[in-house]
């Protein structure tokens, strides 16, 4: 094992420079260190000006997603050991504007997430004294996979369509829409269809499939989108039946 490993880090300091630059940092190599540990070492010991996001260090918060050697990963879940001998290239998530260094602006995603109404919509709201909306384990199983999304946005960084067509609502937002559509307690599928069954909704997707390949929580957003296409198509055909209106 080497003594040190080199990280080639994307630097962009808007108050100082017009264009980004690469900066090399040599960090001590430790077995079981993650890329995030190396970045924290840089921040603490070498260069305090380096900016990046992180929080939980255990693959739950979804803050530390970055491009490492061109792949979108959670840096808290990517071993340095697996990237030897280096240099290891660290960049901000692809597809989002860069605010500074490794920090991207994700407000586009947040706005899109709001549009799909990621909450349980009820037409008939029960009184509190009537108790909770109950659900069988099989019904929970229908949407559980999609509820695992941590909004880390690796799927957006892996999706070339989102980069090419920024109006695309994107993999995680659609997977989260499906999380509620498949929930037996939810009655808002028709409302979400207005946002999703349009070009910038599911029909932008050409099924590259990389969103599912990079998802650290195995949410399978590509599957969610394709299943939504099937549902939207069935809904369209149903709308052609006599006596039915879209």
């Amino acid at each position, binding site marked *: 094992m080497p003594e040190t490993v080199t990280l080639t880090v994307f*630097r*962009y*300091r*808007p*108050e*100082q*420079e*017009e*264009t*980004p*630059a*690469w*900066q090399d940092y040599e960090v001590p190599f430790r077995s079981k260190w993650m890329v995030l540990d190396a970045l924290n070492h840089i921040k603490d010991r070498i260069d305090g000006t380096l900016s990046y996001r992180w929080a939980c260090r255990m693959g739950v918060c979804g803050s530390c997603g970055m491009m490492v050697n*061109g*792949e979108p990963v959670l840096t808290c879940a990517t071993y340095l050991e697996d990237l030897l001998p280096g240099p290891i290239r660290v960049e901000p998530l*692809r597809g989002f*504007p*860069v*605010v500074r260094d490794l920090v991207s*602006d994700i*407000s*586009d995603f947040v*706005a899109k997430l709001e549009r799909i109404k990621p909450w349980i919509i009820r037409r008939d709201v029960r009184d509190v004294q009537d108790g909770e909306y109950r659900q069988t384990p099989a019904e929970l199983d*229908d949407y559980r996979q999609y509820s695992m999304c941590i909004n880390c946005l690796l799927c957006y960084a892996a999706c*070339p369509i989102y*980069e*090419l067509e*920024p109006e695309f609502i994107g993999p995680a937002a659609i997977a989260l829409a499906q999380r509620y559509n498949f929930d037996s307690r939810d009655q808002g599928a028709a409302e979400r269809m207005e946002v999703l069954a349009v070009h910038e909704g599911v029909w932008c997707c*050409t*099924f*590259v*499939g*990389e969103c*599912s*390949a990079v998802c650290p929580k195995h949410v*399978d957003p*590509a*599957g969610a989108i*394709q*299943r939504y*296409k*099937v549902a939207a198509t069935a809904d369209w055909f149903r709308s052609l039946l006599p006596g039915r209106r879209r």
Partner: protein
Amino acid sequence: MSGHGRERGGPPEPPNQERSRADEAVGGAGAPGGGRDRATDEVGGPAGGAGGTRVADSGGAAAAFPDTDRRGPGPGGTPGNPAYTRYHPKWHRPRIPIFWWLRSPAYVIFIARELTSVAVGYAGLLILLLTWNVARGPEAYGAMLGFLARPGILAVHAFVLLALVFHSVTWLNLTPQALPRRIGGRRIRPWSVLAGHYLAWLVVSAILVWIVAVKS
């Protein structure tokens, strides 16, 4: 906050400070339209900004990032000065390279799958053309078979066959992700979807081979 950076009559501020205050002015939620434009104009001064300080490693930056696209604007961009985006005057937006699909093998396979759909369309047209010539009579059909037996055409069709197989395999492999997870209350397993599709492909191919090789 929106008034910062536009105070009149005060002592001249150091350039960097002026810039950061101008940024604040841009970010001011209540900033009137005219004030906002003026503020962004201040920020969008000569290249390098008012500060004029640059770090050592930014010297070769333009060469390192030739694809840099700073034209903007993104959501909430400022129409008067598209190089800057409202609230975020100095976002970096990399330009997407035309060969983006060479970034990873998965993208190459995706593009190949999309392109080989042309071969699928071609094969469909060829079958229609054959059927049309069958209807025109034995002579026309024979002439077409003779044309198809030319070495050049055979070579093209060998390539078309490879493209069809590639398209079919990559397409069928995606089917488990596209089908509902539950049909009629029964949970659908991915392997059963795959097995069903490949079995159907095999059966149809076997029937065609039987018709072509045995019956004719």
